[in-house]
């Protein structure tokens, strides 16, 4: 298992070093951040004025803000002037065929059961025209168009549907919501936009896979999902394959708006490069994800499986404005080696009879730190509201840490909040029991951890769930011994 672990870190490490040869054709602007840079970004993207104003407002507010330091994280100083804030997303394929790709990376892909075509896509191999999934994409686009569903890149949405963008951008995450959201609002390059019209049930999982250039996720990604009255959509972000990026800092924003009786399911698998065994390198992931249940009886659920990144700072939240609206947060967060994660959720109850559920399963291994941080706030007007929170921590050894920081504010007497928390260590006896039946330790840990996380994994769409299970196992390889 030492070997496996080595392979994984080596794979990620190597790809990290060699995989991102700067493409001379990429359009990159100089490092640094000031108003001119923001104007330049907006100009290059040919944005309407409201977008520029949005960016400038965010930037001006950001300048007055400080990086948050309340999380249970040790964040090295970040030099925001050393980042280039614009690179046109037209990366060329780096390899001609899979033969040129690091065989160990391919092995990881195989372990995850990722189909060959997708492997090429992810590894940055030129995809042959004949076997390209263009036809899949076309059928996909046609089906969506028939229903009136808009699913495109954010830039495209700004051009094609400015009225929708203008109406909903910043509604869930205001420009100056927090330091990283403000930065994102000022400089974001691209992302996804999705609009489900009234009464439409999106017939398929919307996956970022199907968007061109989705593999080159930007450093400052912006996603906006709007579900109109009586609509439904399930949205999948990320992928289980190890993702690397030359950018160390990632600060994405995801906004969801659910109108009357609309339902949005948002599932994420985050597997960014976590750094090597000694804690060197790795992505810093500072994400703001928030959904607003604006309409009555609307529902937003976040399901996340977090295994990557050196630092994760992430609290997918729901603002339950509409009466009878429902918010859910289901999370599995794995940290190994020197990874640090401070993640959880906020449930803000404003409407009457609103309900929220938080299920958080932390798994820590190596020398990592894994914290759950959650806020449940029931406003005085949110009569008869309910929250149930379950926060479990599983430790794989004695060198890792698990922490729970629940904050609860209940503003009226008719509401009920329940919070349960457990911390346990993976049982040597359980592993031995599996061993005695012929199952090796690595597989046993995978089984036990998956059993522990089952409640959350069950919430993932099928195709994602199977990969996520394998991913959990792979991320913990070599972590008990």
């Amino acid at each position: 298992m030492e070997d496996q672990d080595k392979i994984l870190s080596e794979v990620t490490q190597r790809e990290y070093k060699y995989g991102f040869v700067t493409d001379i054709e990429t359009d990159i602007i100089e490092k640094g951040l000031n108003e001119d840079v923001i104007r330049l970004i907006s100009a290059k993207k040919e944005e309407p004025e409201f977008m520029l104003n949005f960016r400038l407002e965010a930037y001006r507010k950001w300048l007055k803000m400080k990086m948050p330091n309340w999380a249970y994280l040790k964040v090295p100083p970040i030099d925001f002037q050393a980042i280039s804030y614009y690179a046109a997303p037209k990366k060329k394929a780096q390899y001609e065929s899979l033969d040129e790709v690091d065989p160990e990376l391919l092995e990881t892909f195989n372990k995850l059961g990722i189909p060959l075509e997708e492997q090429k896509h992810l590894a940055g191999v030129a995809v042959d025209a004949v076997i390209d999934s263009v036809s899949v994409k076309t059928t996909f686009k046609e089906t969506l168009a028939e229903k009136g569903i808009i699913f495109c890149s954010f830039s495209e949405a700004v051009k094609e549907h400015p009225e929708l963008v203008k109406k909903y951008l910043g509604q869930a995450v205001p420009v100056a919501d927090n330091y990283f959201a403000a930065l994102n609002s000022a400089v974001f390059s691209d992302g996804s936009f999705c609009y489900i019209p009234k009464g439409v049930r999106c017939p398929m999982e919307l996956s970022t896979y199907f968007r061109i250039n989705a593999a080159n996720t930007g450093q400052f990604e912006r996603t906006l999902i709007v579900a109109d009255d009586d609509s439904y959509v399930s949205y999948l972000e990320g992928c289980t394959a190890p993702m690397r990026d030359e950018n160390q800092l990632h600060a994405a924003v995801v906004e969801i708006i659910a109108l009357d009786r609309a339902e949005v399911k948002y599932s994420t698998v985050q597997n960014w490069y976590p750094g090597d065994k000694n804690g060197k390198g790795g992505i810093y992931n500072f994400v703001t994800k928030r959904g607003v249940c604006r309409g009555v009886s609307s529902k937003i659920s976040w399901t996340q499986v977090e295994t990557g990144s050196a630092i994760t700072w992430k609290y997918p939240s729901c603002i339950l404005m509409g009466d009878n609206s429902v918010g859910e947060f289901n999370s599995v967060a794995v940290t190994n080696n020197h990874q640090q994660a401070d993640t959880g959720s906020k449930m803000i109850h404003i409407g009457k009879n609103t309900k929220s559920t938080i299920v958080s399963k932390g798994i820590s291994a190596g020398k990592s730190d894994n914290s759950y941080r959650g806020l449940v706030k029931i406003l005085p007007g949110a009569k008869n509201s309910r929250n149930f929170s379950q926060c479990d921590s599983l430790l794989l050894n004695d060198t890792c840490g698990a922490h729970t920081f629940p904050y609860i504010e209940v503003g009226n007497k008719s509401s009920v909040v329940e919070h349960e928390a457990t911390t346990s260590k993976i049982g040597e006896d359980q592993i031995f029991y599996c061993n005695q039946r012929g199952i090796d330790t690595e597989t046993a840990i995978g089984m036990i951890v998956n059993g522990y996380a089952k409640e959350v994994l069950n919430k993932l769409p099928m195709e994602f769930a199977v990969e996520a299970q394998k991913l959990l196992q792979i991320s913990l390889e070599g972590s008990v011994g």
Partner: protein
Amino acid sequence: MLSIKDLYVSIEGMEILKGINLEVKPGEIHAIMGPNGSGKSTLASVLAGKEEYEVTSGEVLFEGENLLEKAPEERAKEGLFLSFQYPVEIPGVPMVNFLKSAVNEHRKYKGEKELTAGEFLKLMREKMDMVDMHPNLTNRSVNEGFSGGEKKKNEIFQMALLEPKLAILDETDSGLDIDALKTVANGVNALRSPERSAIVVTHYQRLLDYIVPDYVHILYKGKIVKTAGKELALELEEKGYDWIKTENAN
């Protein structure tokens, strides 16, 4: 089949087994009896490869090979099965998945084709009938919420699925009513063959009415103090463990 020579075992610096010698030939059933704390479970655990026990000296050969240098899962796949005195619960892991993995790991090791889900279910149903397992149990998580008796039956059920060469039953009879006891005995007897052996650790003579041993050993304070035929169990039942204790007082 199994040959234990002068085995000394310690845990946390405390010597528990003090020179065990035991020879189990193919087809034989050996009963090991003895008061609580004698080291019966320790012996079973050491044979199965539990890590925290330290073998300070001695040797164990299983089918002529050094057992002690093998990983627990390898021992299992070589055909050594332990029915645990206290089977653990593994929440969230469905019995079916667990058992299918176990069976297929054994098959892979033997170079046999892995069973498909359908084939496995068929095999499972067959064995389930044999040990009178309630079908509902296999839909649950491993041992989770099983009663004491159900856990023990589940051990025998797994034994039936894995068909070991050497089965070690650690007090599988404790806490069972007479019907369950018979079921357990039937499970063991069904596996009986000239090639297979079993070590039956028990506290009571009762089980040995149904699983008739070739030898009975009495383990006391980490040593085998008496070995005889099946009549020894009856004698022990009659005279009680005090008999052993006074005989071995020093």
